[in-house]
């Protein structure tokens, strides 16, 4: 899919074209370690086939993700998958699945700052990845919920035990989910929205 000429440009399928009234966009970031299911979750609730936006990172010798090689180069391409949900004729929700490493977050302006909130997706087999992510979101004041993606071969821990292990405040919602299922991923987003709603102060 290299950029060649305007004749070869792909675009949205006709059924994916937004109505002209679609002018209000909001975003939610799904953040987690490599292979935790971010793209799976984006894909299960998205109305479009997940798309990828890329950015070039010009630092030398940086691996792209946890499993990347350590080859040294001057430019690394970092990809982020995203999906879309039309909430109404006017309001569109975009979901971005982003790696947990903070150095990638700066590649896209305001990725977290402009988001309504975040979902921290975790794999109980690799909890250590989540500590850093949770700490960074707390530092930045980004409201988030924690979703535990249930992998068949992962040990099942009670949510309260995980909460203690992650040193997570009582008020931050935690929910088990199966990122492959639309209804389950939708429930995670609903949990985030209800949490954000609880943080909102009623208008005086």
């Amino acid at each position, binding site marked *: 899919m290299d950029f060649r000429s305007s004749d070869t440009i792909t675009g*949205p399928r006709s059924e994916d074209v937004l109505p002209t009234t679609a002018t209000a966009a909001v975003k939610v970031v799904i953040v987690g370690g490599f292979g935790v299911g971010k793209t799976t979750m984006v894909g299960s609730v998205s109305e479009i086939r997940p798309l990828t936006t890329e*950015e070039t990172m010009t630092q030398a010798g940086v691996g792209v993700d946890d499993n990347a090689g350590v080859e040294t180069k001057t430019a690394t391409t970092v990809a982020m998958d*995203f999906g879309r949900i039309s909430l109404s004729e006017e309001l569109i929700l975009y979901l971005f699945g982003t790696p947990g490493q903070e150095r990638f977050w700066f590649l896209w302006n305001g990725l977290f700052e402009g988001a309504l909130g975040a979902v921290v997706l975790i794999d109980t087999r690799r909890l250590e990845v989540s500590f850093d992510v949770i700490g960074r979101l707390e530092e930045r004041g980004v409201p988030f919920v924690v979703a535990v993606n249930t992998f068949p071969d992962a040990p099942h821990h009670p949510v309260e035990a995980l909460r203690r292990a992650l040193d997570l405040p009582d008020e931050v919602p935690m929910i088990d989910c199966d990122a492959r299922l639309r209804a389950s991923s939708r429930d995670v987003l609903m949990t985030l929205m209800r949490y954000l709603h609880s943080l909102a102060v009623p208008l005086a």
Partner: protein
Amino acid sequence: MITGDLDDSERSALDLVTMVVAQAEPSPTFQPEQAAILRLCQAPLSVAEISAYLSLPFSVVTSLLSDLLATELIESRAPIVRATLPDRSLLEAVMHGLQKL
């Protein structure tokens, strides 16, 4: 919210989910990338989707869009961002939309 790291004012004006709509038809006088953007944005499209469909990095797309904005060939609508006090009616609209999934 002050982000501090957005020192490039042109780029910082465009978010991943800024919605873009073309105000002109593409013509042969445009650069191929500009014409492609105008063709894509006959209906509203986010900056992230433009980057994905054109297989161009986000920073390249925002730079192209800034030029098109300056010449009024496109219009953009900034996203609704998280406010210090979240907007309950907005969150309710989001929940209403999610319930229909």
